[in-house]
């Protein structure tokens, strides 16, 4: 018996992809050229799967701040904030985030994953209840597992099922904490947040919204789905990441609740890890500033998202239930997803493959994400390559009607 025997089936699948030379889970970027292009396998490749929503990774102002802070304060903090102290930048970014959201408190984590781990594990104690949307990101499930609360899940985007779960817990002691996402990262669909907020008002409890994929994307000022849905007052905690719209790395939580700062000495994923380096912090502060300064980026992003979504739906691909910067096409099975992905990459287009159990309802997905930095010509080239590969693999007809999956009724 070997240590890795338990992974034998997975290892065989992985080895097969490696042997074929087309492993979507092990792609090397030789050089990244811009938010939309990189050299992969020696050729210039169009990037359509990097979550770089606002294209800020190469923004000159953001880079200048990162360089300046690195030169001034060094490459790393070499420790955690509780043991080794906070730099001015950490506190400055927390203030900037709280101000942006109009909240009293802000807390920064070293990754978006850790933000969910740190917040969910600390908010819910042993006798409390975490109630998660079934399609929640792995970081939400893992955060729930890290704590000691009772965890249940409700049907994806179903206010009725959430209400059922809360009704069953009505006479059970303990706080009820509901967790949903702004935009779901696999299919790009949004939560019915107004309805969820109404359920929360009816039964009581706290509402956590993970705006990782909706910060800088939705809402009048880019604060996300809660702003777009007009229910920010019902949302108790907003969690998010710096690694998508803000082009850096790190995560955060903002809230109004008094006593919030106690989380700094009870949240293990906050306490027992090194804090973000000065360069990342400074870049994120500037990216957040750019996000507010240039609403045009958000408008361009959403126009680009609509262009790709309509383009792929128009070809006859089964796409997600609504246009969003995440544009996924449903593949009949993982093998087709791999073949399709490989053809696109050979043709100079980088996308993602997403498979169960990371995806809902056992779907195999060819996932794309759009950037404000994409030109219309780039998106049209991508749509053209999807058309060729889709026809070669018999996924779409020569001339196709618009089709959208009815995910609400799918089991």
């Amino acid at each position, binding site marked *: 018996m070997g240590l890795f025997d338990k992974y034998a089936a997975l290892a065989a699948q992985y080895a097969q992809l490696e042997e074929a030379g087309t492993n979507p889970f092990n792609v090397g970027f030789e050089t990244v050229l811009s938010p939309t292009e990189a050299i992969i396998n020696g050729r210039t490749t169009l990037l359509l799967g990097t979550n770089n929503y606002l294209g800020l990774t190469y923004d000159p102002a953001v880079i200048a701040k990162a360089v300046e802070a690195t030169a001034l304060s060094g490459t790393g903090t070499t420790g955690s904030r509780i043991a080794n102290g906070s730099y001015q930048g950490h506190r400055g970014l927390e203030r900037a985030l709280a101000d942006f959201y109009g909240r009293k408190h802000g807390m920064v984590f070293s990754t978006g994953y850790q933000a969910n781990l740190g917040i969910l594990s600390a908010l819910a104690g042993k006798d409390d209840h975490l109630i998660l949307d*079934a399609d929640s990101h792995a970081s939400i499930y893992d955060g729930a597992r890290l704590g000691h609360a*009772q965890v*249940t899940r409700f049907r994806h985007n179903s206010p009725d099922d959430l209400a059922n779960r809360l009704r069953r817990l009505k006479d059970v002691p303990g706080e009820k904490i509901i967790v949903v996402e702004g935009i779901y990262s696999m299919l790009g669909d949004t939560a019915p947040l107004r309805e969820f907020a109404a359920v929360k008002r009816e039964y009581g409890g706290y509402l956590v919204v993970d705006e990782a994929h909706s910060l800088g994307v939705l809402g009048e000022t880019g604060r996300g789905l809660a702003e777009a849905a007009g229910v920010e007052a019902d949302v108790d905690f907003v969690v998010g990441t710096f690694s998508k719209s803000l082009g850096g790395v790190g995560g955060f939580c903002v809230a109004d609740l008094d006593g919030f700062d106690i989380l700094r000495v009870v949240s293990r994923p906050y306490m027992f890890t090194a804090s973000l380096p000065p360069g990342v912090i400074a870049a994120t502060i500037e990216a957040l500033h750019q996000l507010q300064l240039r609403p045009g980026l958000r408008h361009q992003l959403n126009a680009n998202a609509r262009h790709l979504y309509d383009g792929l739906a128009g070809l006859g691909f089964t796409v997600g239930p609504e246009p969003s910067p995440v544009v996924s096409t449903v593949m009949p099975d993982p093998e087709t997803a791999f073949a399709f992905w490989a053809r696109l990459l050979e043709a100079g287009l980088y996308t993602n493959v997403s498979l*169960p*159990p990371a995806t809902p309802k056992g779907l195999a997905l060819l996932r794309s994400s759009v950037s404000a930095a994409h030109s219309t010509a780039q998106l049209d080239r991508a749509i053209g390559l999807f058309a060729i590969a889709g026809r070669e693999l018999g996924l779409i007809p020569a001339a196709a009607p618009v089709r959208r999956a009815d995910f609400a009724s799918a089991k």
Partner: protein
Amino acid sequence: MSDSGTIREIIFDTLRGSLKRPVELSEQTHIVDDLGLDSVAVMDFVMEIEDRLDLSVPLDKIAEIETLGDLLRVLSDLKAHV
């Protein structure tokens, strides 16, 4: 409605409706090995049963379930305490 015989029938009935191929079901049936369900599929299948019994099964309980007999015991226990 809540005795274990009825719950057993609800489990088998729900599974027959959602499995792609016919499998002979018993309390010894192993959910992952015999039915080929992944972790999310197991949780989705339990959701159907939760609706029919009007109860919620916490995830840590689902994680302990290996066979249909385990599931039956967890559900019977939860139903008895509602």
